[in-house]
């Protein structure tokens, strides 16, 4: 199942409990101009669940975005992955709090968590708290977080091939967010890209 939440338009459930064997993909999209606190908790109560959470935040002005995502593996044998990517500019602040909790005896759990941000300007702040709390030993869990800027070498490459700077930067941003927006419906994708 594929669910898409446009923050500020669609209502986001605060809690979800997964007791069915299912493949669930959730995508959160925060468009420019939107400030929001997004607390979201999900409990996995059954084996064989495959959960994928994707998040995108575009905050070029003075937005304040705060994701608070908790994934609890209460039983073993399930898979979860989180991928959050965002571009922060102006005086905006973006914060990602992500907790993966693996209960005692929830063996054979696989949980992955990633958060990547790009800062565009002085005054922008990106904060990330990717947390793992693990009480079982036979698990595969990892997280990664990065924060950086648009690679100047890539920019140079594109410009040396005659692409104007503005467009080249936009291409870089599209490639940065494409892992998150790749599966979204065409019209939403276009809508996101036009706002970059």
């Amino acid at each position, binding site marked *: 199942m594929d669910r898409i939440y446009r923050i500020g338009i669609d209502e986001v459930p605060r809690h979800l409990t997964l007791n069915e064997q299912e493949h669930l993909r959730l995508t959160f999209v925060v468009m420019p101009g939107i400030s929001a606190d997004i607390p979201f908790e999900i409990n996995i109560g059954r084996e064989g669940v495959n959960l994928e959470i994707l998040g995108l935040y575009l905050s070029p002005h003075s937005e304040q975005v705060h994701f608070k995502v908790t994934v609890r593996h209460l039983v073993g044998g399930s898979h979860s992955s989180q991928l959050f990517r965002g571009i922060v500019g102006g005086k905006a602040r973006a914060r990602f709090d992500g907790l993966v909790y693996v209960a005692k005896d929830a063996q054979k759990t696989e949980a992955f968590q990633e958060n990547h*941000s790009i800062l565009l300007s002085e005054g922008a702040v990106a*904060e990330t708290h990717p947390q793992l*709390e693990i009480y079982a030993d036979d698990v*595969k869990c990892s997280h*990664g*977080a*990065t924060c950086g800027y648009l690679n100047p070498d890539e920019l140079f490459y594109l410009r040396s091939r005659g692409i104007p700077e503005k467009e080249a930067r936009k291409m870089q941003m599209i490639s940065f967010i494409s892992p998150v927006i790749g599966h979204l419906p065409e019209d939403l994708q276009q809508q996101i890209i036009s706002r970059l």
Partner: protein
Amino acid sequence: MAEEKDILAAAVSKEYSEGFVTDIEQEFIPKGLNEDIIRLISAKKDEPAWLLDFRLDAFRKWRQMTPPAWGHLSRLPKIDFQDIIYYAAPKKDEERPKEIDPALQETFDKLGIPIREREVLAGVKSKVAVDAVFDSVSVSTTFRKTLAGMGIIFCSFSEAVREHPDLVRKYLATVVPVGDNFYAALNSAVFSDGSFCYIPKGVKCPMDLSSYFRINASGTGQFERTLIIADEGASVSYMEGCTAPMRDENQLHAAVVEIIVEKDADVRYSTVQNWYPGDAQGRGGILNLVTKRGLCRGENSHLSWTQVETGSAITWKYPSTVLMGDNSSSEFYSVALTGNFQQADTGTKMIHIGKNTRSRIVSKGISAGHSENSYRGLVRINPGAVNARNHSQCDSLLIGSECGAHTFPVIRNSSPSAIVEHEATTSRISEDQLFYCNQRGISPDDAVGLIVGGYAREVLSRLPMEFAVEAQKLLSVNLEGSIG
């Protein structure tokens, strides 16, 4: 499989060989903590008025504070601060006040700490200058004269207060302010002894300096204070070790370490922490609540932390670096091993202020038994920290299904030209790895030691040589029988 399980289970239950008590006449001050006690400690150490005022100010601040509760330390007991003796010292022989008591000598011999220069010079031990602290006082500092010839000051903190008051006053509490946190404030009020080290401009310290801390008396706590200053272009390697007797009570150890690194200076700080961890049922053990911080004040300064944490019932410790000078850099290498009912919440903070500042974090956690091991860290890039760079790697290894391994990093980036990366993984010793070793005739215990040694290698290889050998031994001894 059952056999392998037994082996894992047995691994964490090895005895603590430093757990003996030295029978020696000691003097104590009354239990409890109030302004009179602080005045008494200060008087015992014959301190100037400014230091007493410093203590009293700290005490007043401390009284307004509450103990931090954010650590992932469910077994940290509520500490009754009125039930602790804040000063205990071995009695001096009045006729021969300069000589070290033979019982103390024997204690440090037993621990393998060279407090006699003769032995070291004869080449029995490697060349290390030692400051040995027993409960609340420093008993001996070796190679002081040799070092003084180069302008290096290496002595106990109390001596530094007497002989170099200007230096102490200039630098004390500049890195860890009195009211920094609850335990730092407590330490500032009641600190007893510790080491003081000053390396003058352009001097490269010719030998490793080290402090050895020993808790002996029961009912006491140890509150050492260490201050290390590396002036412009200086460099030094500093090591710290610690042990305590086995007791059913929890003993408090609340230290403060401050390091100041000036322009072009280089400091390497290594710790092998082996306080008594408590018994297999989780009774007793040291509560290790420590504040350590370094300030890279000048350009191109460099500070490197390496720690091996195997002891203590509770560890709450975050050696941190403030990267203030442009082009300054810092590293944090840590191995934390917890077994039985030990709990560790440890990590680092890297605060990037200057331009082109660089930091690297490598943390390896190993949890076994019923223990909990957390990495908690902060990487903060301030707005002016142009081109700052950080890379953090935090790995956890779980041995057995009763323990926990956690990672709580915080990254806060306000500089658009900075790059920060963090990664963490969790794994365990797989049956395949064990089987592979066993099949080649390596006993399961040795196999665990081998695998853990390989896992921690990146950190252990950063330690000065003898320390590395000792740390490797500690890791394998503490894990003996943990495969279960």
